[in-house]
């Protein structure tokens, strides 16, 4: 996505962010439009955030969850999507466990497809809301240094953040055990760290990823305890690094695993702002896509 587009979305989100502070939080631009939320993978917060954004823009919302639907009866993604589209949908928001699924979907249906997270590939609206939150905090993105901490290999949040932040002129590092850093990631223009204390003093903000407890237990890293001891972001660790660091997390949080409770709830944490900004950013994306010709 080019810099101008990101800029436009973030700027548009500012006005929707104001709407969200009004007593009546609803505006009419998508009246008469129908948006289908196709969530083939469960995700409470992204789905709620999109749904709220759609309703705030006065769109009609069609919800769909894979569990209990025809997908579990062996219907293909193509058939499911075409059936839903046959009901005259204007836009599709899709979450899917397979990387590239929204890309594929856009080749078989007419409607605009918004990627709400696909496998280990991308999560564009999360990166946009992360950038919005950083810009709100620092009044700029250019030359900020952000470190993404955790399982970079399997993280769509990491990839989208790297693309977005690099485009906006920020410096991006990634930090995690070698087993969770994907091959050749430095070719994306990021610095790779394996020791969190080496990078902490250098950064303006941390984007801390949720560590998947169930992920190939014992094969990619030895234990949650060891992960917490070496990569967990704690007050003590932040103090030792000196200086203040903005704390972000895409959620849901594993308290005292990748982030200690006092850091998550601390004064430099913008985790709850991220959630609120998420609605405004998604409103901006839906508005821009839904009102173009």
């Amino acid at each position, binding site marked *: 996505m080019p810099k101008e587009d990101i800029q436009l979305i973030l700027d548009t989100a500012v006005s929707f962010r104001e709407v969200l502070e009004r007593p009546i939080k609803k505006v009419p631009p998508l009246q008469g439009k129908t948006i289908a939320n196709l969530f083939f993978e469960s995700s409470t917060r992204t789905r709620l955030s999109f749904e709220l954004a759609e309703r705030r823009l006065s769109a009609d919302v069609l919800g769909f969850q894979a569990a209990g639907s025809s997908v579990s009866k062996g219907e293909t993604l*193509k058939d499911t999507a075409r059936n839903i589209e046959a009901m005259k949908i204007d836009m599709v928001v899709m979450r899917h466990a397979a990387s*590239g699924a929204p890309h*594929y979907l856009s080749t078989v249906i007419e409607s605009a497809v918004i990627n709400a997270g696909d*496998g*280990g*590939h*991308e999560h564009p609206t999360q990166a946009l809301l992360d950038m919005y939150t950083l810009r709100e905090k620092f009044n700029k993105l250019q030359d900020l240094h952000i470190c993404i901490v955790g399982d970079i290999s399997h993280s769509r949040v990491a990839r989208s953040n790297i693309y977005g932040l690099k485009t906006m002129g920020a410096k991006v590092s990634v930090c995690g055990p070698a087993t969770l850093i994907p091959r050749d990631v430095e070719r*994306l223009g990021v610095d790779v760290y394996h020791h969190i204390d080496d990078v902490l003093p250098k950064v303006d903000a941390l984007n801390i990823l949720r560590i998947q407890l169930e992920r190939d237990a014992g094969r990619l890293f030895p234990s949650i305890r060891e992960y917490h001891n070496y990569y967990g972001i704690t007050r003590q660790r932040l103090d030792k690094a000196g200086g203040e660091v903005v704390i972000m997390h895409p959620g849901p949080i594993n308290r005292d695993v990748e982030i200690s409770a006092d850091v998550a709830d601390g004064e430099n944490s913008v985790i709850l702002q991220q959630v609120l900004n998420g609605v405004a950013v998604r409103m901006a994306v839906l508005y821009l896509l839904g009102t173009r010709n």
Partner: protein
Amino acid sequence: MNILLKNGRLIDPVSGRDETVDIHIVNGRIDKLGHNITASGSTQSIDLKGKIVAPGFFDMHVHLREPGFEHKETILTGCTSAAAGGFTAVACMPNTKPAIDDESVIKFIHERAKIALNGLVDVYPIGAVTLGRKGEHLAPLAELASAGAVAFTDDGDPVHDAEIMRRALEYSSMFKKAVIQHAQDLPLTKGGVMNEGFNSTTLGLPGMPSVAEDLMVARDIQLAKYTNAQYHVAHLSTAGCVELVRDAKKNGLHVTCEVTPHHFTLTDDAVRTYDTNTKMNPPLRSRDDVEAMKEGLRDGTIDAIATDHAPHSFDEKQVEFQQAPFGIVGLETAIGLAITELFEKNILSLFQLIEKFSTNPRRILHLHEIKIQEGESANFTLFDPSVEWKVDVQKFKSKSKNSPFGGYVLRGKAVGIINNGQAYWN
């Protein structure tokens, strides 16, 4: 069938000939080979000026899908695809249903091949190494060999257990047959759907590291050395494997290998569109690997070009990349890709190209040589090395159209084949 091939350039690696000749074929045999032969009576005369006459091409790695997966391909459609692609013979892989782990399946394939196009294309079944290709229990290799299996493999899957591999090598060497390995370390590639590297990182797709292929080939070469057996690497795709095979040959081991046209043509950059027709196993690799394929072909490390023709129906590939089956069709683009990528780019001469398409596969499988002499039966591939054509997958004779090369402009195409008293013209 009486045919007079006029003015073709005969290139025959077996006899070392490279000259323009006329060939008169009477009742499927070479009646006369010389200059200024004139057609008489019912003889059909074909002018092959500027075209190549070669000993029949042999694709030693084809999935004909029958029995069991006739919605993807049948022996008839597979043989037609082979004929259209310029192959007079194929070796078919045992990952059918049932697998080729019993002589009855071999007999079934032979029977079907005999009636497909009146036996135009020779079909040589390759037997399974283990029962059901499960990797646990040796298949009846002697019985399969007696029934006509030309080699053994569990292709589709590797023979993963080193002990089974060792015993398969020992056992098959009693009757001079190669064990063909689909080299893939399974734990290292668990869940993988493409080559591991920068592209898998950006696409967020689980990777299959090249080292997983290297490890299995390295292990097998040690086993081949220990057992003094014949070992063949199917569809090798990594620079590491080329080096391993090169060293094995230098050390005098009976180790051979094949490469597919897609592995010497495409890199994993092709996957960036999530096109499921770029999903195959082994996966498309890096630029360095592709260069190593070419170098291996050039210096003779890579003996054969084989397509790994793996048909899948349209719907089977119309899914998310991770859900799609591995494999692409290859018979009808092989000559075009080889001419375009290897001959035109001065990697191989036509002579060498024909060795890799005809002479060497037959040698690896211990089949008789094709003799181009008067009195011998006519087994020819005729191709035009300079014609330019655009690949239209809908025109494929194969039942399946799953090719990443649709729309490609290639140079070089089969004109036709002659074999077993039959001819096929494009």
